[in-house]
């Protein structure tokens, strides 16, 4: 075992702790309570580890830190080698943050009969371990392996714990990603055999492969590019490869939806940054217009469809699709601002949308599980706090200045503008749509007179807003309590508090994240031989 850089034990621990957790929790699944506590303990431990590893990360230092490597399949030069750079690090931190919250949010959820909390949380921890691995893998073969394995726990999470059409959703999710992955496999093999030709001995080491592939002839690059691109475009759903996401999100339990949108999909955009740009710079430049079109299409298309949804969870899926459009836009407009923006967008989207999903989940829980927007209305009267957090999550989703998402969206747009003014302008107009769908949702659920089947069973749900008078009547009914709807309890507050803190904190002082990410982004730009359109007055970004 060779280690590169200090603190490689941290990374190893980051990989093993959730794995161990999964095992332990499975063992304890007989007793719900202990299992839940164990799961929470492990996830919190993982979060602490993530923070420690962040603290020990030197942004100025090597690109890849805290790494270690073991030989796996010598005949193919496959190694089990992990390491983190700035981008992977922040994503791992986000995973560490979200999982405990998801566990907390799912604390009291009702599961389908015959399923145990233990099993549920164990799968989540397993998924966590795998995703950490995906972000940290520095061996392309290993990356591919984890990229595919990652599907299986998620497949069972959706299929076993999901809603009515969960089988359809699970299979659809799996097949989409699996097909994408297989096509990527072709490209992986292609790169490998290029390495064989160039170096004599084949290797899957990411850094070496970059060296081998990145000056291949354009035609070759384009083929290999597409192999990776399709896989990643399915994961980070770019229109038109997105249709699995609404189904998956709609059927998955809330916590799983958070992981799906907040973490799994990020693997796609992460792949853009880690694999497409460095390995196929020419192809990336050549095909950037294509990707930009898809990205901007995603922004507009996703936003419009979000406004057209009747189901809250599908709504969330389309919102994410729009956001992934922004991320892709930032990545493929090739400026350090836009790239940094995209990375921070990945982080902030996980936080903001994660929060939004959790809050919507709390709304749904109060509405007796109905996900139809039309079943709700005027809830803020009964649950002002819930209304408040929904609004905060919404504002962060529409990236209002002062919330974390603003920083990233601003960076993406301002960074993309110099290279891709037209696309950026269209995307900027997308900001209006964002406001539209968020406020629409907030109005339908929280504002107006109290209404909706979910809140007032028996009272016909008013598609058209009822008059104020009837609203008053309904309020009276609710007060007399045909159905008891309570505001946030302590557990929910505890789950949401850190998110709100981050939403505001990172909105006002994003520097820590930016400083961690920017050096890695600069390194990526150098690998892809990209130059900032707007150069800093005093210094030019130096390539190591």
């Amino acid at each position, binding site marked *: 075992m060779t280690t590169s850089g200090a603190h490689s034990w941290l990374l190893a621990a980051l990989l093993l702790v959730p794995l161990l957790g999964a095992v332990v929790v499975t063992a304890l699944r007989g007793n719900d309570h202990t299992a839940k506590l164990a799961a929470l303990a492990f996830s919190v431990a993982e979060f602490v580890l993530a923070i420690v590893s962040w603290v020990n990360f030197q942004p100025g230092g090597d690109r890849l830190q805290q790494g270690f490597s073991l030989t796996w399949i010598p005949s193919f030069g496959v190694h089990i080698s992990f390491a983190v750079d700035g981008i992977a690090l922040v994503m791992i931190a986000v995973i560490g943050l979200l999982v405990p919250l998801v566990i907390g949010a799912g604390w009291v959820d009702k599961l389908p009969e015959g399923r145990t909390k233990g099993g549920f949380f164990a799968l989540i921890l397993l998924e966590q371990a795998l995703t950490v691995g995906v972000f940290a893998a520095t061996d392309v073969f290993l990356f591919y392996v984890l990229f595919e394995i990652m599907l299986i726990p998620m497949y069972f999470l959706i299929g076993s714990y999901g809603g009515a059409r969960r089988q359809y959703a699970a299979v659809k999710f799996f097949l989409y990603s699996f097909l994408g992955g297989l096509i990527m496999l072709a490209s992986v093999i292609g790169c490998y055999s290029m390495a064989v030709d160039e170096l004599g001995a084949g290797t899957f080491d990411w850094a070496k492969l970059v060296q081998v592939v990145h000056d291949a002839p354009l035609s070759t690059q384009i083929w290999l590019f597409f192999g990776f691109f399709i896989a990643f475009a399915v994961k980070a759903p770019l*229109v*038109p490869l*997105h*249709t699995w996401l609404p189904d998956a999100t709609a059927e998955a339990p809330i916590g799983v939806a958070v992981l799906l949108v907040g973490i799994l999909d990020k693997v796609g955009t992460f792949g853009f940054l880690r694999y497409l740009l460095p390995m196929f710079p020419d192809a990336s430049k050549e095909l950037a217009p294509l990707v930009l079109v898809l990205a901007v299409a995603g922004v507009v*298309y996703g936003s*419009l*469809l979000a*406004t*057209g949804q009747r189901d809250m969870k599908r709504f969330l899926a389309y919102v994410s699709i729009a956001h992934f459009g922004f991320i892709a836009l930032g990545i493929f407009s090739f400026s*350090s*601002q836009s790239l*940094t*923006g995209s990375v921070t967008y990945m982080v902030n989207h996980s936080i903001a949308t994660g929060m939004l999903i959790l809050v919507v989940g709390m709304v749904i829980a109060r509405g007796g599980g109905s996900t139809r927007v039309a079943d709700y209305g*005027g809830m*803020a*009267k009964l649950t002002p706090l819930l209304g*408040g957090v929904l609004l905060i999550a919404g*504002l962060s989703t529409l990236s*209002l*200045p*002062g919330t974390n998402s*603003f*920083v990233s969206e*601003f*960076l993406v*747009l*301002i*960074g993309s*503008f*110099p290279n891709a*003014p037209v696309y*950026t*302008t269209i995307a900027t*107009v997308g*900001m*209006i749509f964002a*406001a539209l769908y968020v*406020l629409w949702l907030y*109005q339908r659920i*929280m*504002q*107006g*007179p*109290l209404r909706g089947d979910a809140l007032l069973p028996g009272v016909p749900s008013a598609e058209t*807003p009822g008059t*104020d008078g009837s*609203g008053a009547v309904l309020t009276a009914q609710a007060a007399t309590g045909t159905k008891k709807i309570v505001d946030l309890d302590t557990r929910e507050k505890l789950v949401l508090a850190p998110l709100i803190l981050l939403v505001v904190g990172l909105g*006002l*002082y*994003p*520097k820590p994240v*930016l400083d961690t990410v*920017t050096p890695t982004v600069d390194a990526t730009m150098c690998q892809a031989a990209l130059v*900032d*359109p*707007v*150069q*800093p*007055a005093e210094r030019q*970004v130096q390539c190591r």
Partner: protein
Amino acid sequence: MNLAAEVHQASGVAGAAWLLLVLPAAGAAVLLLGGRRTDKWGHLLGSATVIAAFVYGVLLFFDTTGQGTEDRLRDLHLFDWIPVNALDVEFGLRLDPLSVTFVLLITGVGSLIHIYSIGYMSHELRDRRRFFAYLNLFVAAMLLLVLGNSFVTLYFGWEGVGLASYLLIGWYQGKDFAATAAKKAFLMNRVGDVGLALAIFLMFKNIGSTQYDVVFDKIGQQSTGVIVAIGVLLLLGACGKSGQFPLQAWLPDAMAGPTPVSALIHAATMVTAGVYLIARSSPLYSLAQAGDARLVVMIIGAITLLLGCIIGCAYDDFKKVLAYSTVSQIGYMILAVGLGPAGYALGILHLLTHGFFKAGLFLGAGSVMHGMNDEGDIRRLGGLARKMPITFITWTLGYLALIGFPFLSGYFSKDAIIEAALAEGGTRGWIFGGIALLGAGLTAFYMTRLLILVFLGKPRWENLKSADGRSYHPHESGPTMTIPMIILAVGSVAAGGVLSGMLPEWLEPAVGKLQEEHGPLSATVVSVLTVVISALGAGIAFLLFGRGEQPVTRPQRVSFPVRAARADLYGNHLNEALISRPGVWLTRFLVFVDNRGVDGLVNGIAAGLGGSSGRLRRLQTGFVRSYALSMLGGSILVIAALLMVRFA
């Protein structure tokens, strides 16, 4: 003209300018997080923070005046906000006469309205502290808007005030129309914000920074195209925030919010942010290459001021008339700042005086509605002068100031603008000056109509009941409400006279020297002309409404212009027809496409595979001989293929 020449680091008193942001923000935070616990003293805390901010503002003002004229541009760097290589957005404050002026306006009027609200919101004690929290939030955001030292920090405040106004318009969120109005306001603002954002992107692309000093320093070297583009995009932002044509439709609806909100946000401060933006960008607009941009600004201003007046003449809703009056007055300001160096100071001057009297007018309206079960239909009011004397007097003073009664504040500011407009010279001068004059007349008309229908004439409400079935018992409001009104009234009377002298050179470091041009008509002629026209308008109003009974319900059979005006000159219909409805259709269509088309294709492929599989497996008949046949066929094919490859 090079503004960024000497920007100094702020120190001493000015060094603590961050207090201006922190005080109200902290107030808001405490009230929101504190929850019910703070119900008892929340309103006091809210007011206290703003008053404290005002006090500091005054200190800051004197500290600034203490500096030499050329040392009055000061930056206060707080921390790096968004630093990524070339882009370095710092979170800093710009302390110069312009921003300090706004600080005084915002905190001053803000304090008054906080105090006023204590009384006004006494009906709904349960939520009062949340109301104050929102007000504080607004003040903080507005201060950030005017204090920020880069366009990004400005944008931060810009959207922050948008949020606050969204929350406050939607205050009665149980009512759908309030919620809708709030949403509408936010969305139309966003349209403007997009313009502002794009302007910022352009700056970064061409200048490489978004800090005021750098931008203003380098803007001169940019191509005309860039300059005009930035100018127009900034204007788009201004239109959104300041309810200028074509984005004016949200402002009247915004009156769904409580009256103090209308007074503070939708009359005195937030809606004037557009004017601030253009004045702040004076180094850009003052450039010779920016002529076209400036012309667009003036056109927008002119159109809006007319449009506002005309609609104002037809409305029967107390607050909405005032709202449209605001629209048109801001039109004046925009027109003024559009005039360039000749107008920045005048625009700001009018902005300040307008801040005083319009806030006063709104508070008066609020006081009236407070006493009349929230009745806003002026046809159901009347003869209230005796019932609420203080309100009547203060309101009348504000009214006189607005219509430009000689030597009240409106007289100084508005006349100056008209004069400057005429002084623009040539047909331009005549057109804009003429419009401005006409506007003055119309303003006098609708304001007089308002005055008569509300305070004078016979009381029409005596045998009426309000919507919630109560009969009206008009009464004067308590001191917390009247005192602010009085103060504002004083302001409306005096401000113009006081400020018009000193403001121009006070602002000079920020917006440049006021260039007095002399148009075809001399100043005296212009002011006489204005007064005459205003008097004319007022007179006509008296003739129409002063005598005889006024119907309680608005007459339906009226001339086309009136109908058009009542329909906001079809602005909303236009939005509806051009944007909303097509948008809805498009969305429905896309949803269909996504389910049937994109997803349908995927499922179609799956179904196709399944179907073909179902059909193909029928070939597995179970008969040995058919299997043998397939084998034979296969082998024949293979051999044939082999031979063909070999021999052909």
